[in-house]
């Protein structure tokens, strides 16, 4: 009976609305008593954030363990994933995050892998630029030419001979770019405001199913 009460959507939305309105009160009225309660609420939110990291890890482990157990397609990659996660977690628990094994795994596996994935962007940008930037239409021509001007302005070898490119690039970045960007930022902010309002009014169905 008690658990049924806690599952009611109205209770969830009431809690969301209360917390949201309290945070807005904290923003609107700067008063030490309100701020102290807000700090506690935010502490709980931080705790939840940390907990969700653990939940996500456990869920990934559960999914890949199932793949290994049932020997589904590519199960060996899932086995590798499970093995790495278990080694990392247990070595971290035993030795601490600054222990020899976690540090080795971090410096020699995670770090280079992350940097490699980021570096792939260089290759993809070049191939995308070569493949797609053709002066096929007016819009694409404008996109292409602005791209090439900014690329050239960031190239010291070219700016030695054409120093005016730097001023053109700065104009593109500080005038049309900022104007367009502000429009998007305002649009995104309006979207976030209305999402908050829908949540306060208990209308955001996707949050509670």
């Amino acid at each position, binding site marked *: 009976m008690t658990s049924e009460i806690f599952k009611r959507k109205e209770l969830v939305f009431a809690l969301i609305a209360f917390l949201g309105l309290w945070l807005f009160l904290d*923003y609107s009225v700067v008063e030490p008593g309100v*701020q102290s309660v*807000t*700090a*506690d609420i*935010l*502490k709980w*939110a*931080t*705790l*939840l*954030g*940390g907990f969700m*990291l653990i939940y996500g890890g456990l869920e990934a482990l559960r999914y890949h363990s199932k793949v290994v157990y049932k020997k589904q397609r590519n199960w060996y990659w899932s086995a590798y994933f499970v093995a790495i996660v278990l080694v990392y977690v247990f070595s971290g628990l035993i030795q601490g*995050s600054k222990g020899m094994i976690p*540090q080795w795994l*971090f*410096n020699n596996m*995670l*770090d280079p892998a*992350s*940097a490699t*994935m*980021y*570096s792939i*962007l*260089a*290759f993809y*940008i*070049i*191939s995308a*630029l*070569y*493949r797609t*930037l*053709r*002066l*096929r239409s007016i819009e694409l021509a404008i996109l*292409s030419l602005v*791209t*090439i001007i900014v*690329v*050239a302005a*960031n*190239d*010291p*070898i*070219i700016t*030695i001979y054409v120093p005016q490119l*730097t001023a053109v690039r700065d104009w593109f*970045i*500080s005038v049309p*770019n*900022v104007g367009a*960007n*502000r429009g998007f*930022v305002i649009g995104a902010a309006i979207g976030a405001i209305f999402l908050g309002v829908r949540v306060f009014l208990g209308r955001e169905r996707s949050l509670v199913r």
Partner: protein
Amino acid sequence: MGWAKKMGEISSKWIYILLAILLVIPLLVPIPLPLTPSHYTMEVYETIESLKPGDNVLFVIDTGTSGWPALGPGVIALVEHLFRKDGVKVFFVEFESTSPPLVDRAVAAAPSASKKKYGEDWIHLGFVAGEETGKASFAADIRKVISVDYKYGKPIDEYPIMKNVKNMNDFKLIVEPTNAITWMEQAIRQWYTPYHVPIISIPPFLDVPWAENYYRAGQLKAYLAGTSGLAEYEKLLGMYGDATRGLAVMTTTHTYAIILFVIGNISYFLSRRKKEVK
């Protein structure tokens, strides 16, 4: 004119191989390049130069391991510059989970770090979970989210540097190099807007136009723009680091990109003309 069409259909394999060569050569063979610090770089430099003894600086390394190769040189240069300032106290904290070990890396690479005492001149507070909510919590009351330091795991109140530091109001400047512009936006929303603490940043290079938006609005005090910005900063400090080496790499790859663009469009127009003639 089959060759015109072939020019526009070069296999990705060859494009990548040539790019890889152009990325490696400048790292092996130093190419000296002219550098004049831009006004963006000078503004960052002058902001740090204007710090006085006793000022507290919050240094938020949110680059993550993936962003370290690109942004790390700038982080090291900023750490070095802050450590050169007598009496300025530096507080390291992270909101991106892979960033904590990067503090040790940055401090180890900064030559002036050897003159600074941990716990008195600088402290590493560690990782705070929750992203934007973590930032808001941290700003409201540091001790609500951090009780021990990251380096030694001791209570932070045991360190003299933490004596009069309770919340965001006790900081003079925030330095936030970040791998995702969204982290910088969170800092602007949760730190600059309510507490008016100025922020300087190294935004991800792809998002420099986005950072310009906040700079023009005055919400971001200054930022280092791209590899050239980092290289200019190294030059101002008299350092020759990875950013300066990276600038040479950027030069070769940018020139390559322009050549590919020209080749692609020549092929496009020649192929189109051939079709029209037919």
